[in-house]
Each structure stands twice: as C-alpha cells, then as structure tokens.
C-alpha cells in the first residue's frame, strides 16, 4: 500500500523528516553555520510544529490517517492464531492521541532549541555542532515513534530515542560523571527494552501482526482470541495477553523511570539542562507512558496488567516524592519529581483513566519543560551553581524567571487553578472510583494521595530556597543576566502551564453540567478518530467496577478537596520551614530516615550489587566455561583433525604399485558391501 493520502495528511511524514534533515545538515555543515547549527534545528522543529498543528486541525475536522509507507520485509510463518504471513512495515497512524502528542513534542522541542541559544551558545559551550545534530536526531526519533502505526516500528524508534539520550546525557564526555551517567541510562533502559523486544516477538508470533490500529491490529486479534477462548502457547488467551503486555511494560518502566528502573534518571541530570527538559517533558521519559496509551486497548484487555501498572505507578509516585524532599541540587529535585509525576500517569492509565493519564502527560510536558528551562535560567543566573543552599533571593533580581517558575511550581504541586491540579485530580479521582471496589487500587490511590503532600512540600521548598530569603552566596548577590532566548520559551511555557488545565475541567463540568471536557471529547473521537482507539472503546473493555461515595459529584469534590488540601498543607509546611531569611536544613528532624532518603533507599547500591555481586561472577563463570570447555572442544577438534590429516596424507606413498593395490582393494571392498546388500553371492 503506497502513501496515497490526499489533503493535509499527505504531509505527515514531513513532521519527522524535518528534524532528520536538520540533523544531517548540522552534522555535515554545522561547523560553517552561524550559531553552529541552531538555526536548522529551530527551523525544522518550527516546521514540524506547523505540520503537527495542521494534523491536529485536520483531526479536529473529523479526519484520521493510517497508512503504510514502506514494507521492509515479510514472512510466511503462520502465527499462533493461524494468521498466515506477517509483514513488517513503516507506517503512519494519526489519530487524536498521536496528533496531540505530535504538537506537544514539536512544541517543546522548538522551545528547547530556542532556549539552547541562550543556554549553550551564549555560554560559549564547545561541541555545539554535535549538540544540535543529536538534538535533531532525538526530535526525529521521538516524532517518528509517536506516529508509528505498529509495535515494531515503535520499538525501533524507541531504541533510537534511547540512543540519543545516551549521546546527549554524555554530552560533556570529558567529565567523569557524564559518561558514567550516560552509560547508566543506556544500560538500565536497555534492561527494560530487552523485555520489550521479547514482548514484540511474542506478540508478532502470537497474532501475526504488530499493527496498533484497525481490523488487522494485534489488539483486535487479542480481543477476538479472548472472546473465542483460544489457548495461546499453552495459556488461556487473557493470561497470555497479560504476559506479553507485561513484557512490553518492561520497556515502559525503563524509559519512564518507574520503580525499580528509575535509578538512571537522577544521574541523567549530568546532561545539559536543556536536554533534561526535553528528555523529561516530551521525549525519552514520555515515550514510555505514551506507549502504554498507544496500545491501551491491549492493556485494557487484562485487568491484571492494569492493576500492576496502577500499583507500580502509585508506589513510584510516593517513593520518588519522598526522595525529592531531601535533595539539595535543584535539578535533582526536578528529576525525582519527574519520576513521581510519571508515576501518576501510570496510576491514571492503570485504573483505566485513559483521558486522565494523557491529560497529565500533556500538562506535565508543559510544566516540567518550564521548570527545567527555569532551572536552566537559574543556573545561568547563578554562574553554573546548582546547589539550592547557595542560592536565595533571586525573586527580585530575575522576575521573569521567578514568576514563570512559580507558575510551573504551582502546576507541579497541584494548586488550583494551575494545570497540574486538574489532571492530577482527575487521575486521583479515577483511582479512587476504581479503588472503592478494588483493594489493590485503593492502596495505589492512597500512595498517590500521600505523594501529593510530599509534592507540595518539595516543590515549595525548592521555590523558597531558590528565590526567597537572603542571597547565600556571592553568585546569588550578583546574578548573571539572561537574554530573550531564555525568556521567550519561559513565558510561552508559563502561559501553557497556567491555562492548559482548562482543556478538561472535569469537576467544573460535573458541577455546572457543562460540556467543557474538551480533551475527553477529543480522545473519545468526537471530532475524528480511528475506529476502536477511543476512550469510549477502552472504557468498555476495561473490566474494573467503579464505586462512589454518596454520589459521583460528592466523590469528585471529596477527592479534589482532599488532594488540594494535602498539596496546600505540603506547601505550607515548606513555607514555615524554609520561607525565612536564613533557612536551615532541618534534617535532624528526620532522624534515621534522612540517611535512607539521602541514599535513595539504597536503590543504587542494590543495583550495583546485582551487577558486581551477581552478574560479574556469573559472567566470569561463563567465561571460564568458554575458555576451558568450549575452547577445549574447539582446540581438541582441530588437533584431532590435523592428526587425522597427517595420517590420511601418508596413504599417498608415492609408489604406484601401492596405489594399484589400494585401488583394487577399495573396489573389492565396495563390491563386497554392495554384493552383500544386494544378495549377489547367494
């Protein structure tokens, strides 16, 4: 099938192609370009944004787009469900979810490119050509991942995204810590991707297709298999769907830094702050959750898988939030907040709250990009100091940075009416509704709710330490100035972080009975959608019962009030402790818990032990086996062969009578064998 789309969708490939072209141009000519390649990147991402918006508008106009661009191989194997042949293709799927994500990714990428002018170019960094080339490749990979129409293509670009993060985290490769952090990010996520790959193979082998959408998709095939009660590889269909879904989830947990694969993400702060913004808001980390949303129909078939997603999400949300409480580095706080916030998204998706999860993904993209870029601005102001105890009092000296950062912080903490409140509330409400019927989900909900308090606390601890009080160092006394390239992205994202929540004012709609839950309509295919990939369809598939306390409205208000109250309580606690002219650390109050938190629950230690204490001896043993047994067999074979060769060679004596004798002897031998078999002598 060729790409025969007419109208705006014909331009869809351009979204990914623009950054790819920018990558090539920057790589080849970057040295000679003004700004070392920033301009091609900015133009390309701006182009991607424009086309993405066109796609968005086209979907809003009732369109959708699903086409195969290129079939790179096909096979004739018959799958477990008796589908004959399988095709591996590159294709494009543009539906409400991917259109929305395309806009988010290209917008954040554009703003990060612009911000880089102020953060990298103006600061006189070297290696900018490499930086912008990798940024372009990164954007390309993520955009192509987003519009992938099948699991294998998604996997390939998922891996490319991982590679680009590796390159960018290790951008300052001459330092000691950056390459180590890059390697860690690469290895930890690769560990998860290993399961993902097995999952892809399992799904392909089971259903004979890896497509996301349509009648030919593995989602539809899995649904049919469950309905028909088919047995797949010795399991009943639902169990098998759970197993394969969880395998794919391995990749998701790695990329989205969910427990226990979260350890790479705080270290990844070694990369440039702009890269952190991109990784956390729109690309690498977002890729994991996006994949769950992309194949939500599949997970929806398995309540077990959903419950695991929800529980891991809730746990990670709380777990990471507690660690963020004791961090001193401004980027570290943000790193743990990212882990925590993606936990919320997983919680939302896990309880069947597809809209809530995607909503939080969108809002988080904006406010986390904002916070990271804001932190980048703070780092510029502070002459590359990142320790919050060296800051203070920046509020008056950098008002643009302060107010935009504050908007992001309010959104992160979930204070009404900033965007984070609406989406986090929706996640928690959905979790509560399901939790009232499912104890496991209720536990996940409780953890998520508790995390709200910690979120409010660490967010405002960060704000107060950075911007309030008296300056605590010379750098804070006399901050460096920031240019327009820093301010414009901050203002744009600040606005979005403030208002993005209005896309889906579910509680307000409930109260006023107004049809203003636009995102829900959007994802439900009110405008345009691919058959089967709608919130409605998912909601029918998810097998969870939902309960209410009193009525739905009271439940909703209760949930919203509870989370808002906890967020405010957290913020207030931070206010009393740290919003003073000379704040102290207050770490002794935590007692023994402080050390546990500061050491990140010893997660790194046990993972290092896994590598050094377990894997290394195992590898050594395997090596020894290889050296002795395998090599011994190989060497033995060659020794025997050479010895045999030496013997065989001696048959050729050089004496022709011997030859004649051997020849006749051999012939008679053959004659005897054959005569015996043929019974000639009888």
């Amino acid at each position, binding site marked *: 099938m060729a790409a025969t789309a007419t109208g705006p969708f014909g331009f869809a490939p351009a979204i990914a192609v623009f950054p790819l072209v920018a990558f090539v141009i920057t790589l080849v000519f970057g040295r000679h370009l003004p700004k070392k390649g920033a301009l091609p990147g900015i133009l390309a991402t701006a182009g991607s944004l424009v086309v993405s918006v066109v796609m968005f508008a086209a979907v809003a106009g009732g369109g959708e787009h699903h086409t195969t661009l290129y079939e790179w191989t096909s096979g004739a194997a018959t799958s477990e469900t008796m589908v004959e042949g399988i095709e591996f293709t590159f294709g494009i799927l543009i539906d409400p979810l991917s259109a929305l994500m395309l806009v988010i990714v290209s917008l954040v990428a554009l703003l990060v490119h612009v911000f880089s002018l102020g953060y990298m170019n103006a600061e006189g960094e070297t290696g900018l050509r490499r930086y912008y080339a990798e940024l372009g490749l990164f954007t390309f990979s993520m955009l192509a991942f987003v519009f992938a129409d099948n699991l294998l293509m998604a996997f390939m670009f998922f891996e490319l995204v991982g590679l680009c993060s590796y390159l960018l985290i290790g951008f300052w490769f001459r330092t000691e810590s950056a390459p180590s952090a890059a390697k860690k990010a690469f290895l930890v996520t690769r560990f998860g991707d290993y399961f993902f790959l097995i999952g892809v193979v399992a799904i392909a082998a089971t259903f004979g297709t890896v497509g996301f959408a349509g009648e030919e998709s593995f989602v539809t095939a899995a649904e049919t298999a469950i309905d028909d009660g088919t047995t797949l590889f010795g399991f009943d269909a639902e169990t098998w769907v759970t197993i394969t879904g969880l395998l794919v989830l391995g990749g998701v947990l790695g990329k989205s830094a969910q427990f226990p694969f979260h350890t790479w993400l705080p270290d990844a702060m070694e990369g440039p702050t702009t890269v952190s913004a991109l990784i956390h808001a729109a690309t690498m980390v977002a890729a994991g959750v996006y994949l769950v949303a992309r194949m939500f129909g599949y997970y929806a078939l398995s309540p077990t898988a959903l419950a695991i997603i929800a529980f891991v999400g809730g746990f990670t949300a709380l777990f990471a939030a507690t660690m963020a409480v004791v961090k001193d580095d401004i980027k570290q706080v943000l790193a743990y907040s990212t882990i925590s916030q993606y936990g919320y998204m997983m919680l939302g998706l896990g309880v069947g709250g597809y809209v809530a999860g995607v909503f939080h993904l969108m809002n988080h993209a904006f406010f986390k990009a904002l916070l990271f870029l804001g932190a980048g601005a703070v780092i510029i102001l502070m002459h590359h100091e990142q320790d919050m105890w060296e800051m203070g009092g920046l509020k008056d000296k950098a008002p643009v940075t302060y107010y935009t950062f504050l908007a992001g912080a309010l959104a992160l903490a979930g204070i009404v009416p900033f965007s984070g409140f609406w989406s986090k509330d929706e996640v928690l409400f959905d979790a509560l509704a399901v939790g009232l019927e499912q104890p496991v989900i209720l536990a996940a909900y409780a953890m998520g709710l508790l995390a709200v308090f910690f979120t409010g606390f660490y967010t405002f601890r960060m704000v107060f330490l950075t911007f309030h009080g008296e300056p605590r160092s010379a750098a804070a006394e006399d901050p460096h100035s920031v240019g327009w390239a820093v301010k414009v992205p901050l203002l744009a994202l600040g606005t979005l972080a403030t208002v993005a929540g209005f896309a889906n004012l579910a509680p307000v709609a409930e109260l006023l009975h107004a049809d203003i839950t636009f995102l829900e309509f959007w994802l439900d295919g009110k405008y345009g959608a691919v058959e089967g990939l709608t919130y409605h369809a998912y909601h029918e598939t998810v097998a969870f019962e939902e309960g209410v306390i009193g009525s739905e409205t009271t439940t909703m208000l209760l949930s919203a009030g509870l989370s808002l109250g906890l967020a405010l309580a957290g913020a207030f606690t931070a206010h009393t402790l740290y919003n003073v002219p000379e704040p102290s650390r207050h770490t002794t109050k935590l007692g023994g818990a402080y050390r546990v938190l500061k050491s990140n629950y010893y997660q790194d230690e046990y993972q290092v032990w896994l590598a050094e204490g377990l894997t290394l001896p195992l590898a050594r043993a395997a090596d020894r086996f290889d050296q002795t047994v395998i090599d011994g067999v190989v060497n033995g074979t060659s020794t025997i062969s050479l010895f045999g*060769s030496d013997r065989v060679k001696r048959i050729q004596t050089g004496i022709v009578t011997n030859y004649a004798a051997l020849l006749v002897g051999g012939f008679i031998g053959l004659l005897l064998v*054959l*005569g015996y078999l043929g019974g*000639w002598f009888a």
Partner: protein
Amino acid sequence: MAVLELPDWMALAPALILAGTALVLFLIDSIEPHSTNRTLLSGTAVAGSLSSLAVAVWFTVAGVGATGIENYGVIDIMNGQFVVDQLALYFMIIIAVVTALVTVASYDYLQDHTYQAEYYSLVVLAATGMSMMAASNSLVTIFIALELTSLPSYALVAILKDNRGSVEAGLKYFLIGALSSAIFVYGVSLVYGATGSLQLTRIATVLESGDGAVGEMGGLLGLGILMLIGGVAFKTASVPFHFWAPEAYEGAPAPISAFLSSASKAAGFVLAFRVFTTAFPLEATTGIIGVDWTLVFAILAIVTMTLGNFAAATQENVKRMLAYSSIGHAGYVLIGLAALSADGGDLVMGAAMMHLLVYGFMNTGAFLFVGLAEYWGVGRTFEDYNGLAERAPFACGAMAVFMFSLAGVPPFSGFWSKYLLYTELINAAADNTVLLVLAAALVINSALSLYYYSRLVKALWIEEPLLDRDRLAQPTGLYAAVIAAAVMTVVLLPAFGPVADAALEAAAAVVA
C-alpha cells in the same frame, strides 16, 4: 535463429569445432615443425575454444534440448549414439570455458618451451574428447570419448620431458588410468552381457521391461554397474580411484593441472550424470540388482570429501593442497548423484552441476595462479608464497577470491552454489538418513576446508616474505586468465539466476 535448417549432426558443433581446431594446429605443426610462434598457436587454440563456447551458448539460448513449441527439443544423432540436450550443452560450456582460460594462460607459461604445437593440439584434442563425452549416449561412444580425453592427458602431464616430476607423474597417471580403463571397459562388457545393449536408452528399456534373462543376472549387472562407477570415479578423481590425482596435478605444468582438475573432472561428472540417469532407472535397476546404486555414490561422496579435505589440511605444497581440495570438491559434487533416489533429487543434482560451473572458474583460477607463481619461480610451498601480495596485489587479490570462494564464504559464487547444494540436500533428506549424514559431512568438511584455504590467503597477505624479492613480471596471458576467472567467480553471482535455471532445467530434463 536458424538452427533448424542445419543438419542434425551440426548440433555437435561445439565438439566438432574443437576437433577442427586440433587439426588446424596439427597442420600448422606440419608446415612449420618446432614452431615457437606462440601468438599463432595459442591464438588458434583460444579462438577454437571460444568459438566452441559461443556456439554452445548460442544453442542453449536458442533452445536446443529445451521442450516447448519454440524450442528444438533433444537432438539425437547417429541413431541415439549421441544426444545433444541441455545437459550436454551445459557441460560443453564448462569445458570450453576452462579450455579457453587454460590456453590463454599457457601463452606465457609455455615461453621457451619446445613442444608448443603439440601441447596446444593435445589440449584441444582432450577438450574434444570431453565435449564428446558430454554428448555421448552409448557405452561405446562414451568409451571412445573417454580414451580420447585420457590419452592426450597422459602426454600432457608428462610434457615437461626434462622434469623428473612431470615424467614420473605422467607414468603414474597412465598406469592408474590404464587399470581404471580396463575396469571400465570390463564393466561395459558385463552390462552388455546382462542387457544385450550398449545404447543407454535401450539399456533402460530392457531393464524396465525385464526382457530376456536380465532378471536372473542381477549380480552380473550389479558388478558391471560398479565397474562403470569405477571408471567414472577415475575421471572425477574420487576415492579410491584418486591416487593419480595429487601426483599428476603436482607434476604437470600448472595450466594442465587446472585443465585436468576442472574440465576433465566436469567431463567425468557429465558421464556419470548421463549414464546413471539414462541407462539405470532407479526402481527397475534396484529391482534387478537388489540394491540402490545411489548408495555407492553416497559412500564415495563421504569418503572422497573427507579424505580430500583431511589430506589437504596439512599439506605444505600449494599445488598438492589444491589437488586434494579438488578431490574434496569431487566429493561435494558426488552428492548430486547420491541424492537421486530422494524426492527433489533433481534439484540436488542441478545444484551440484552449478557447483561444477562455479568450480570451473575458481579452481582453474587457483591453479593458474600457481602457474603464475611457477612462472615467477617463487617456489612451491606455503612459506615460499609468504608476502606475495606486496609485489602482486591484483593476482593475490584474485587468489584470495578463489580461496574464499572454494571454501564457500559469502558473497562469492562458491558460497551460493554450495549453499544451494546444502539446502536442496536438506530438503531432499526429509526422510532419508543417508542424505542427512551426507549433509553433515558436507558441513564438517567445508568448515575444515576454510582452515587450509585461509592458510594460503594468510601466507599471501599477512605473512612477511622470507627473503626480499625483486619486482615480479606481469605476464599478460596468465594475468588475463587469472583476473578473468576471478571476475567470473564474483559476477557469476548476479548472473546466478539464468545459470541456476539452466543447471536446474538440465538436471530436471535428464532425471525426468
């Protein structure tokens, strides 16, 4: 094309052209005895072999032997004594190609040689015999063609009269050859005794109908068949009739070694393919002699490839290593006959024929490179070849291609033919343990062969030379032949589609 208007006997043109060329060479020799006009003599021989090649290709393309309305079908000549079909033409092509390469290379090799005209006429006469052998369809014509091939070969091996090795090798070759011929001709008489016929199709008819007393002469017929196999084994240098090969190849001038190990071997195989597919239909013959004759070929294949490769592994002399490798390859091709009893056996045979064609280029090229080394006078052992690549990178590059192709390393043609042979064999071996054993032997031997082939490449390219060499000459003819063979070894791969089709069609036509 106007083949139809030609008389039937013209279908033998590829062989007749070669015969004519030999006569022209004799004529030149009688006008000017002891002529050393290398250009004229070599040129005539090359022209003759190339015309033979051109006509054979033309016939194939025009559709001689192929069925269908536009084609000419199989052409019988002299009451079925000769037959020209796809199989015959395919082998005539192989033989003509090798002859052309060898005669081009001989131009330089025979510099300052006494018996120029004799040399070329003997080569072309032997080629005539091989070409006739491809078309022979009766045990009489086969025997005559066989002797027409063998007798000039004995003389050619011994043509370096002052060289002790050459003369000794010639004598040994002749003695073993005489013994083998005797066995073969005795086999012919036994088969005639059992069936009352010499023409191959008629033998088959007799066996299938069970006319006369043939049913009671199973043992006699079986012994006859076994003796025929002996004759074939001699020509193809298969165990245990291989003893002449290492010494003859080592002692003979290198172009003659190339000629014998490629063209002569191919002729031996066409003989085997022809006789055993036409004259002894499996079921009928098995019914009479009580045993499946493919079993003999399976045993011969395993023993031959194993012995050839194992003996090659530790040779110090390059030419001798190539001689044993050539025995090993005979073992591979024998698989084509061993698999005939299974379903899909015709495909295996087609793959074996394809391997012979590829082998015609890579093995000839390898021996010609040795000829080049002899021309330079660098010595005969692996050590003497050390570091040659520094002085002659092109020729050594070509040699590396030959070695890797012989070992069956991708992407060279030798890999594809061996790969096809292997896969078809595995397909055919679905319920046949003997063939599975054959496949295993093929794999093990191929792996072993990589060892000694790469040893030579290592010597050429990696090792340091033992002593400093002066610049090496670049003889045009030898170089041209070596490079041409190398190019064909590489590009036969893109052309593999048509070549593969030709081989498979030819095999299917004779098996059916």
